[in-house]
């Protein structure tokens, strides 16, 4: 069979099984929905805390910290959704901007308050582990939603898409934890709020490399209607 004949057979087979598909919504629309979900999580976090965050928002560095992490998360989410579309990629400027925003936020956390060292190890651990778990829980639903949204596309670079997805969900959770958690001690925040962000983002990148990357299935007739 010649190439032209094979091509004809292939095209006829594909055309014969074609069904209408619903194209992906634009990145902005999907990002908007994800931010809406994050807003709902924010409302829940704000109504289930003993932290007087409204008073703290009067301090510029605190407000800036929360805003920077939220902005970095939004940018990461946008990159993740964009990576789900073949031919569109995360620009180096946008990646760099996201990283810089997060780093400036971390720097603000580190220099915002003097570090306390008077904790007993037991106290440090018992309080901290709870915060780490809470950070992960706050990120869980947005992470699942964003993973699903990215998976619905066809990401060509699984690890990058996974890392962006993890970074988006966890950075937002970090910002939410600054609202929810009453402790402002940099050592506590950097250890128990930031470490889960880094660890889960790395795990998300690994998971993305394994499961998020677009791999065509054997049959050609499937469609996502």
């Amino acid at each position, binding site marked *: 069979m010649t190439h032209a004949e*094979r091509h004809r057979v292939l*095209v006829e087979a594909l*055309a014969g099984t074609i069904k209408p*598909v619903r194209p992906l919504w*634009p990145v902005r629309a999907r990002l908007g929905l994800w931010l809406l979900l994050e807003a709902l999580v924010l409302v829940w976090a704000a109504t289930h805390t003993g932290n007087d965050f409204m008073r703290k928002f009067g301090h510029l560095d605190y407000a800036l910290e929360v805003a920077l992490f939220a902005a970095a998360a939004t940018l990461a989410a946008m990159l993740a959704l964009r990576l789900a579309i*073949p031919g*569109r990629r995360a620009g180096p400027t946008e990646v760099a901007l996201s990283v810089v925003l997060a780093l400036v936020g971390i720097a603000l956390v580190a220099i915002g308050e003097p570090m306390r060292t008077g904790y007993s190890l037991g106290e440090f651990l018992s309080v901290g582990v709870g915060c780490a778990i809470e950070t992960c829980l706050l990120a869980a639903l947005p992470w699942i939603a964003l993973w699903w949204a990215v998976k619905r596309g066809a990401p060509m670079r699984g690890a990058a898409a996974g890392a962006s997805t993890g970074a988006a969900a966890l950075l937002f959770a970090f910002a939410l934890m600054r609202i929810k958690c009453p402790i402002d001690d940099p050592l506590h925040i950097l250890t128990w709020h930031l470490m889960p962000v880094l660890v889960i983002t790395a795990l998300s990148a690994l998971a993305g490399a394994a499961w998020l990357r*677009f791999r065509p*299935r054997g049959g050609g007739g499937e469609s996502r209607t």
Partner: protein
Amino acid sequence: MDIPVSIQPSGPGIRAGMDRPSGGGGGRCAPTPFVAATEAPCCAYTPESRIERLSEGSDAIAGSAARMKKADDAQRLERSRIRAHLMQRLQQGDADSCRLLLDDVGPAVTRFLRGRVASDEVEDVYQEIFMALFQARHTYEAGRPLEPWLFAIARNVAADHSRKRWTRASWEELTPDLPERAAGDSPAAPPDIEGLLTRLPAAQREAFAMLKLDGMSLEDAAGRAGVSVGALKVRAHRAYKALRKLIGGEGEGA
């Protein structure tokens, strides 16, 4: 960005005289330029004719090259618009647009694959790319050029293929000479299948004979045996297992 675009005069391409696209972005693809792009300039232009024209005289080179580049860009743009429009129709489930688009991008995909995959594997990868394009068709964003989307998928499939090939090759060990046999070894004699078959239960023997010796299909063999396809598969599987065991036992005994 380097966007490969098919401008091959030979082979399948967007045909003039197709149903004019309608609806969903029709305003962007007006009838006149659509027909114009698919008839005159596209067919009149060939790389060879450009070379001939360039060799006519050095004075004309600068002017004609500029004109051709302009025409080239316009054609490319128009063709990209048509492809994008066809892709939108494909997303809506239009089989004719699917045929037109895949025929048009076929030569470009083939060219893309040359040099990226081994020549004896081009057909396989070509097919995989088309399957992938088809499966990922919902991810194409209307209003954007098709080519970056198309070639990102093609690149991904080709890279996957190369990776698999490399992994396979890394497990294979090439040796210059066949390993020498130990002095006492004798070349293994082919197993006596017929003799071994007599040692199988009748139902398993029948299943094996129909499928492997007579070359019957599962359905036909199941019909003849008067059992379901599943039951026949089970019998055949048991026969394979028993034979493997018998052959292994003979080998050890020899």
